[in-house]
């Protein structure tokens, strides 16, 4: 098994000044504020979008933020933090004994924001449109609305994640979308959805406001007047807004959050790093020397002090993972024996040295390892440069890398960029840049970043 490094990109949930928002994502916020009138806009920064495009088409990959959270809804809401599934547009669902048929009962009394009732036919139409525009759902044979309340999915093979995938599909109104000429290229500037905040009250390229859906099916939960999104071209600007108290909730990385953020108003400012998000790992090209050697991979892994990496690069917001490679979202699935069954996730320089010796990577005169033919053993780590926390991770692993154990890696802020762009890829000089078969072994992670 190759071992990967597990440090974490955490998303951060700052919960301040928020008196009970509608459940938009997995993150909710506590705290109190003096103003409980409900006239406020919930202000949220996006640190990775310098500007917004007025595109609320949920089928496009870069729709405006909140398209999938506040405008449209799905049949089920799945909470990765506690593993719970909450009925949403559907109230209940049943699977046939052979697993080939799923039947959802739609909630009564849900209307689209234009006042039309939402029916099972909308669900069937959404799946038809999704398959036409994007393909996917190969396991679905037919999707049929038996009546206005019941929609039946017939599978061509038993597929256990189907409930999760189908349940999370965003549902769009048939009476709107069937009149759109080219749904793939429509920007859907004035969306009609079932979500709590569907009305675009203002749209500028760097901020936009969503107002209340007048026909929302849970009006008692629309406790704020709307949502305001702000655009930022990087972490720094968004962090500054959070520190200044100009946004209510943020989910970007913020260094030393206790001091830089919470200390300014400890009573109302809080943060949460749920360990349910993506994991950070090296992706070694296991088809090329020297990474095709299991001993090299284990030795590299053992040479990394994961505690120090998570402490320094992640400010301790996340912890090292074990060898199951499961993030905190799967805590109930993690088997303690399996987690404790490997030794290569422990920082152990002596064992790493022993493995290098065993595979014939001699210690050179200058105290660094060389390849078997005597040439220097160096490797490049390609990492994105857009986000400070991504850059500091390889730097700190370099710091922890003992010279006697293994080669000095060099960090190149190159390769695919943008913060989410970056798996840490390790490659030999001959294969530089080539990312590798994805092999996630371990990680721990945090994110309450909503699906977008």
């Amino acid at each position: 098994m190759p071992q990967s490094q597990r440090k974490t990109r955490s998303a951060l949930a700052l919960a301040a000044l928020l008196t009970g928002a509608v459940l938009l994502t997995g993150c909710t916020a506590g705290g109190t504020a003096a103003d409980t009138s409900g006239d406020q806009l919930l202000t949220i920064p996006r640190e990775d979008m310098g500007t917004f495009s007025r595109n609320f088409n949920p089928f496009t990959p870069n729709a405006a933020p909140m398209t999938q959270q506040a405008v449209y809804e799905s049949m089920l809401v799945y909470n990765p933090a506690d593993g719970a599934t909450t009925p949403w547009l559907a109230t209940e669902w049943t699977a046939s004994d052979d697993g080939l048929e799923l039947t959802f009962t739609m909630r009564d009394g849900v209307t689209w924001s234009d006042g039309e009732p939402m029916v099972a036919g909308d669900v069937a139409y959404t799946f038809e449109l999704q398959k036409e525009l994007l393909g996917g759902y190969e396991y679905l044979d037919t999707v049929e609305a038996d009546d206005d309340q019941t929609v039946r999915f017939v599978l061509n093979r038993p597929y256990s994640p189907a409930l999760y995938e189908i349940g999370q599909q965003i549902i769009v109104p048939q009476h709107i979308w069937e009149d759109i000429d080219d749904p793939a290229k429509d920007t859907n500037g004035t969306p009609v959805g079932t979500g709590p905040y569907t009305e675009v009250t203002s749209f500028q390229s760097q901020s936009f406001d969503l107002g209340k859906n007048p026909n929302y099916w849970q009006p008692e939960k629309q406790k704020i007047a709307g949502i305001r999104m702000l655009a930022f071209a990087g972490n720094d600007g968004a962090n500054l807004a959070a520190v200044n108290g100009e946004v209510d909730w943020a989910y970007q990385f913020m260094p030393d959050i206790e001091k830089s953020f919470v200390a300014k108003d400890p009573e109302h400012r809080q943060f949460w790093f749920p360990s349910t998000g993506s994991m950070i790992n090296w992706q070694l090209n296991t088809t090329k020397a020297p990474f095709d050697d299991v001993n090299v991979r284990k030795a590299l892994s053992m040479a990394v002090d994961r505690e120090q990496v998570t402490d320094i690069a992640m400010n301790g917001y996340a912890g090292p993972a074990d060898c199951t490679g499961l993030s905190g979202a799967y805590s109930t699935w993690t088997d303690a024996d399996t987690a404790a069954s490997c030794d290569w996730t422990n920082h152990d320089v002596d064992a790493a040295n022993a493995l290098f010796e065993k595979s014939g990577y001699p210690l050179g005169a200058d105290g660094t390892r060389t390849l078997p033919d005597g040439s220097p053993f160096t490797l490049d780590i390609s990492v994105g440069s857009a986000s400070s926390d991504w850059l500091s991770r390889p730097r700190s692993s370099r710091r922890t890398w003992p010279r006697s154990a293994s080669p000095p890696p060099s960090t190149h802020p190159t390769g695919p960029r943008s913060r989410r762009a970056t798996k840490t890829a390790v490659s030999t000089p001959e294969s530089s840049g080539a990312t590798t078969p994805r092999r996630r072994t371990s990680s721990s992670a945090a994110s309450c970043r909503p699906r977008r």
Partner: protein
Amino acid sequence: MRFIVRRLAFYLLAFWVSITLNFLLPRFMPGDPVTRMFAQAANKMQPHQIEQLRQLFGLDERPIWQQYLTYVHNIFTGQMGVSISRFPTPVSEVIGSQIGWTLLLGGTALVIAVVIGNLLGILAAWRRGGVLDSVFPPILVFVGSFPYFWLAMAALYLFGVVLGWFPIRHAFDAGMTPELSWTFFSSVATHLFLPALTIVLVSIGGWMLGMRNTMIATTAEDYILMAEAKGLTNNRIMFRYAARNAMLPSVTAFGMSFGFIVGGALLTEVVFAYPGVGYQLLAAVQGLDYPLMQGIFLTITAAVLVANFIVDIVYVRLDPRVRVS
């Protein structure tokens, strides 16, 4: 007239070369837009979604020469296509929504830097060894050699956060709609101040030094001595005789800089979260968004060429020697 026609032919050739490079270079970059998008989504996309996106975008798989013909045709018919990284927003809309802010920021900063920088340069050279001449150049060069990013952050922190005199982000207040009103214009002006100030600070030194040096060379000319002998006023000699002749290199530099403004000021946009083309270009390059890249590069190319062409024409007016040769 023949001069202008010759220049025009040269510019057409330059335009063709640059649009061809503009077409080829992005395609030499490794990867394709969908794999970039996949990489950017990190763990949030499944492998089967790659196929979905290819289907959605309808990526061009034709031979490259056919793509090139379509590309040239589209340029001359003004169709820039649909952005991939901001699918399905048309490229013209992405650029159109940003270029106004870029021109406002870049234009304001450039004009202020050029006017003040050149004036300081003229005055410094005229009173050589005076206070202006001995104090300003070192200070301005010192400030100008600060890393821009640092300077911008410092200004933002001092004037925006600590003193609170200026807003710390965006081009106008959130929730405001662009309109012809005093409140909107004052909001735009206060938001523009810090970004423009930092650009002026780092660029003004160059303008001043350049002007000062050519001005010194010009004041050594015989015709200045002649003008003094005729008893003309100092101001008249300084501006009409010396500065007018010393200004030629500055005019060239101004034209070049003006063309490059449309490329945007990436660092300013990042620090002040100011809207503009620079960030769009960065995002387009990162996402291998060929249509958007081509659109922005085309805009920059066209702007630089047009600005240079105008400078050429202005030169004919300013410098009689060009007309003769």
